Structures are given as structure tokens and as C-alpha cells.
């Protein structure tokens, strides 16, 4: 399979340019997004381009396999590869869904406060899902208990009731692009801020909050 795929990407000016990827590179991107999503404590930016391209690629492979003569060993191997890719894709989507369900009031709030022009963490379908999920939960609580309570107690603020993602949790990462002067905030009051440099190829165990923007930009990879 030697075709290339078009992937629309944002460059630094905000305009979109076409980046051409081989299938191998696309799958690598999918795996990177998958691992990042797995190890990050919060919901990361949604990657609709990667998901769409991978789905197209799978359909394409399915088409090829149907035309090939069955019983061929290559067919089984290709099928196994397809299953593997399919698993990674659904694991990625499942991971996102679980995080959405876990932190739904905060995610909705973040989406409401998002400045225009900033990319969303939610795909359109995920956004619909979160809204409905919030609705259903509120309706359920209201119908089962809250509406039977005294009138001044019938409102529950889910934003305060549901725990927030723990951005201070530690993550392992590998550095892809060299970074300088990363400010590390102290955990305890006696410590002070200090600055570190991240060398390319090095691996670290660090608080997620410190390097969150680097994950989004692709400068580091969570492992």
C-alpha cells in the first residue's frame, strides 16, 4: 500500500494547509494520540482529521481485501493489521468517552467559556453527547430526589459536586522537540520555582500541569 493521504493541518498562522501523510505515518499519529489520551488526566484536543482518515484507510483496506483471492496468507495478515488498527481507534474513542463522562460538568463549562478561534476538545458528536449526558443526569437527580425536597434546596451545582481532573498527577513523557526554560512550580511551600530544559529524546516523570501545553503542541509524547 503506497498511496498517500491528505491531512488538513493548521499551521502557525491559523490557515490550513494540506499535509500529505503515508498510511504508516497516519497510524503513527493515531498511536501517539491514543497514548497521549490514555495517560493524560484531562480530556485532550479532539483530532477529527486523524479519526476520519483512519476510517477511510480501513475502508480502503477492506475493499482491497475483498477483491484479493481468499485463502491467501497475506489476506489474514492484513486482516490482523486491520483489527489492530480498529482496536486502537476504538480504544482511543473509548478513552475519550470515559473522560467525558467522568468530568462532564467541567468539560461543558470549559466549552462554554472557550474563546472563539481556539480549537475545541470535543468533536461535534461528543459535544451533543456531553449535553445530553448532563441533561439526563440532572433530570434523573431531580425526578428521583430533588423535586421532593424543600423548595430552597432543589438546585444542585454539579460543577462543585463532581470532582475535577487532577492536573497535578504525575506522567511519564519522552521529549520530541527540545524545550528550554520550562518553569516548574513548587509543590510544597518551602520549595521554590525552578527552571529546567528538556533535551530531545530524554524521558521524564513530571507533573502533568507543568507540561500540558507541550502535549497539545506535540513537543512531548506521554508514555
Amino acid at each position: 500500500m503506497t498511496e498517500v493521504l491528505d491531512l488538513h493541518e493548521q499551521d502557525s498562522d491559523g490557515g490550513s494547509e494540506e499535509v500529505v501523510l503515508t498510511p504508516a505515518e497516519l497510524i503513527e499519529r493515531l498511536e501517539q494520540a491514543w497514548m497521549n489520551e490514555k495517560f493524560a488526566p484531562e480530556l485532550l484536543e479532539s483530532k477529527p482529521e486523524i479519526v476520519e482518515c483512519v476510517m477511510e484507510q480501513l475502508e480502503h483496506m477492506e475493499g482491497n481485501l475483498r477483491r484479493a483471492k481468499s485463502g491467501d496468507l497475506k489476506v489474514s495478515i492484513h486482516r490482523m493489521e486491520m483489527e489492530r488498527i480498529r482496536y486502537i481507534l476504538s480504544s482511543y474513542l473509548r478513552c475519550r468517552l470515559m473522560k467525558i463522562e467522568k468530568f462532564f460538568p467541567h468539560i461543558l463549562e470549559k466549552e462554554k467559556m472557550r474563546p472563539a478561534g481556539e480549537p475545541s476538545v470535543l468533536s461535534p458528536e461528543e459535544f451533543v453527547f456531553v449535553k445530553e449526558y448532563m441533561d439526563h443526569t440532572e433530570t434523573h437527580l431531580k425526578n428521583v430526589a430533588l423535586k421532593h425536597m424543600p423548595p430552597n434546596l432543589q438546585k444542585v451545582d454539579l460543577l462543585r459536586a463532581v470532582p475535577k481532573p487532577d492536573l497535578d498527577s504525575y506522567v511519564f513523557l519522552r521529549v520530541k522537540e527540545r524545550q528550554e526554560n520550562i518553569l516548574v512550580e513548587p509543590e510544597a511551600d518551602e520549595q521554590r520555582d525552578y527552571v529546567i530544559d528538556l533535551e530531545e529524546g530524554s524521558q521524564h516523570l513530571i507533573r502533568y500541569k507543568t507540561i500540558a501545553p507541550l502535549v497539545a503542541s506535540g513537543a512531548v509524547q506521554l508514555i
Partner: protein
Amino acid sequence: MFCEKATELVRELQRAPEGQLPAFNEDGLRQVLEEMKALYEQNQSDVNEAKSAGRGDLIPTIKFRHCSLLRNRRCTVAYLYDRLLRIRALRWEYGSVLPNALRFHMSAEEVRCLKDYGEFEVDDGTSVLLKKNSQHFLPRWKCEQLIRQGVLEHVLS
């Protein structure tokens, strides 16, 4: 003492190991709501009396009842929300068809909430025609869910 029933509800869930859903304690919930109603009415009459008859000595009692009301509410919401979390975890594990034993433990509203939620789940969308007693050679991952539900049997011969 106030809020005893409410804390009992929470303790019930604490005792149940993770992944298990005890039966919906409708009776317990009803008792908590009744207690809240009684507390609220007592407070209302006391507030009126404090205002009209100038009985400022009632205020600590009023405050205390109010705190009990808040605690009751917090316990009930925690109870209901934790049940929802457990149901959600079970859903992720078992897929669309929950075993009947579980269904008996859920209230009617929980089932409704679950059904509505079910429509939006990410599904692979493949379907295989499964007639009774027919045998198929299928990729394993497609069968796994159905095997768990007891619909399919893994034949090794």
C-alpha cells in the same frame, strides 16, 4: 439524631464492593425525604415566630436544622450519583444488555436514564445473523461481548 437514615444510605454503598450494585433502597430514600420535609416545616414555623415574636433564641435551632437539611441533601445526591457511576461502569463492561439480576436492583428512573444514555454509545455497528444453534467462524473480538452475555458459546472442536 437527624441524618441517620441518610448516612445509612451512604454506608450501604460504601459496604458494597466496587462493581456491585445493591438493590435500590427506595424505602430509605423516602424516609430521608420525609425527614427533610419535617425539618423544613419546623424551621418555617420557627422562622415566622422568630420574626414576629422576636424570639432570637430560636435561631441556633433553625441553623442546626438547616445544616441537617443540607447534609441530608448531600447524602442523597451522593447516594444517587454513586449508583449512577456504578451502573455506568457495569454498562461499559457488559454492553447493551444488562443481566436481568442487575435490572431488578435498579429503579425505574435508573433504567430510563440508562436507556437514553445507551443510544449514544459508540458502537462498531456490525451485525451478524445468528440463528439458533448455527455455527460461525468469526473474529474473536466481535464475539467477545456476546459470549459474555451468554448468547454465543465458544466451540473449540
